[in-house]
């Protein structure tokens, strides 16, 4: 064993415990754990770097102006050229609609759970169902919207139907993230506000939310990134189109995940290049949104300073 015993070689009598020799065993342990931690970190980073590297190297090929300017209308898999304009428009619109619906519902739910619900039966029930929703496979969310919105209510395939499916997936993640952030706000601040004669709702809006804002924004961005890559629920709700459809409320729409899925399934090299470029664009959009959101969160709290 490496944890060498200090006890076998006790310090000479009368001088008390030695100040130098005690640490050897602990030093070895310390180093071993350090190696483990760095090793685990490297292991976790390898797939990330590998994915980024592969996507960039393969995707850069077709990342040209055409890719952002044209759709696939009238092109088959063999043809060179074409682009993902229809898919980019579709994804941006669908995710925007998803966020507009999901974020308010989720943030308000989290506020209820943390600030008002306490340990009441309603709060516990909601919390339970949020957990259940977190576990819903994305294809099931798609099937649900397909069954309810398209088959029962009779609406047609549309970007909006896709957004509904994504909403189901986004709400629980944002609720959980926001809940955690609100719980981190020290109770001192709430009490300080109450003690000034500020009503509860104003305390929540002007003291608690701004304090938790940057964390909430991060949580929302993670959720956006997650739903932006969802493919299965979209296949069932937005259907396919190679043409540009800017109206998310009418007719099939494109989206980046379904675009990648479709192009990657085609054995032609032109298609495969387009699939990689699509993946790269998806990553870039998520990155830009993240940066933008952080910037906004920082500008919103000029006095924060940290």
């Amino acid at each position, binding site marked *: 064993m490496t944890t060498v015993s200090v006890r076998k070689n006790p310090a000479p009598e009368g001088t008390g415990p030695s100040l130098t020799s005690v640490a050897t065993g602990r030093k070895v342990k310390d180093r071993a754990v350090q190696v483990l931690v760095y090793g685990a970190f490297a292991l976790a980073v390898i797939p990330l770097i590998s994915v980024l590297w592969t996507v960039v190297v393969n995707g850069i090929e077709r990342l040209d102006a055409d890719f952002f300017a044209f759709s696939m209308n009238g092109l088959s898999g063999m043809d060179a050229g074409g682009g993902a304009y229809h898919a980019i428009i579709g994804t941006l619109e669908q995710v925007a609609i998803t966020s507009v619906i999901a974020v308010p519902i989720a943030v308000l739910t989290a506020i209820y759970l943390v600030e008002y619900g306490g*340990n009441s039966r309603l709060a516990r029930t909601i919390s339970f169902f949020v957990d259940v929703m977190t576990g819903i496979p994305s294809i099931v969310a798609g099937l649900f919207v397909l069954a309810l919105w398209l088959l029962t209510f009779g609406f047609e395939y549309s970007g909006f139907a896709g957004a509904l499916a994504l909403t189901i997936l986004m709400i629980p993640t944002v609720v959980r993230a926001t809940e955690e952030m609100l719980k981190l706000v020290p109770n001192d601040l709430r*009490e300080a506000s109450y003690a*000034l*004669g500020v009503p509860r709702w104003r305390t929540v809006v002007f003291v608690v939310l701004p304090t938790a*804002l940057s964390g909430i924004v991060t949580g929302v961005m993670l959720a956006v990134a997650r739903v932006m890559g969802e493919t299965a629920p979209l296949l069932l709700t937005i259907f396919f189109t190679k043409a540009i459809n800017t109206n998310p409320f009418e007719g099939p729409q494109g989206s980046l995940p379904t675009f990648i899925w479709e192009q990657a399934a085609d054995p032609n090299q032109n298609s495969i290049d387009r699939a990689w470029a699509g993946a790269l664009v998806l990553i870039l959009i998520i990155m830009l949104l993240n940066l933008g959101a952080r910037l906004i969160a920082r500008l919103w709290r000029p006095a*924060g300073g940290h």
Partner: protein
Amino acid sequence: MAKRIEVSGLHAYYGGVHAIEDISMTIEPRSVTAFIGPSGCGKSTFLRTLNRMHEVIPGARVEGKVMLDDEDLYGASVDPVAVRRVVGMVFQRPNPFPTMSIYDNVAAGLKLNGVRKKARLDEIVEESLQGANLWNEVKDRLSKPGAGLSGGQQQRLCIARAIAVQPQVLLMDEPCSALDPISTLAIEDLIAKLKSQYTIVIVTHNMQQAARVSDRTAFFNIAGTGQPGKLIEIDDTSNIFTNPEMKATEDYITGRFG
């Protein structure tokens, strides 16, 4: 501005726990009343019943009467939010709002209650900061974050924030326990200055502090763990520290407690 507080037959509970039992006392306006006693004897709990902050904690409730001049704070039609505008509070740990500037911290109580006029706010912010002996130190950096000040300055900022809403009564829950002696002195000077305008109640573990700043002192004690806290006696500070009526008080202030 200051008002008299008359408490009669007050009990406070946390869920099933009886925290303080049957407290009655009168707190005089324009004076400083200190609460002393061992930890857990209910002095902070009692303080928090005086502006209905006690009930903010889930499961907490209060029985009894607290008259502010001629209004019962626990009357059926009384709004706790309105009570807290009249009875301000300063906490043990300085707790400025971290997302707000120094200016916004002081203006918070007013802004959150709908005062919007810039000129009026400027005026009250300056008045309050001057009232809290902080104006000279921060007047050039009002837009900087309040969290960037030192502990003692933060606590004075919290006092400025509390007096900005122009309360009648100011409750202080061990306001100096997290501060160094210099900052403590600054706060004590401030308390001496504020008492000409406010009714001040201060909880403190520091008996010298109670002796220095207060006009009247109340001693609280518990019979044992799990027992409710009780008021042992309240008297002029000079009497409590030189000639207390009760044996327990004498034991406590002379350090022969137990």
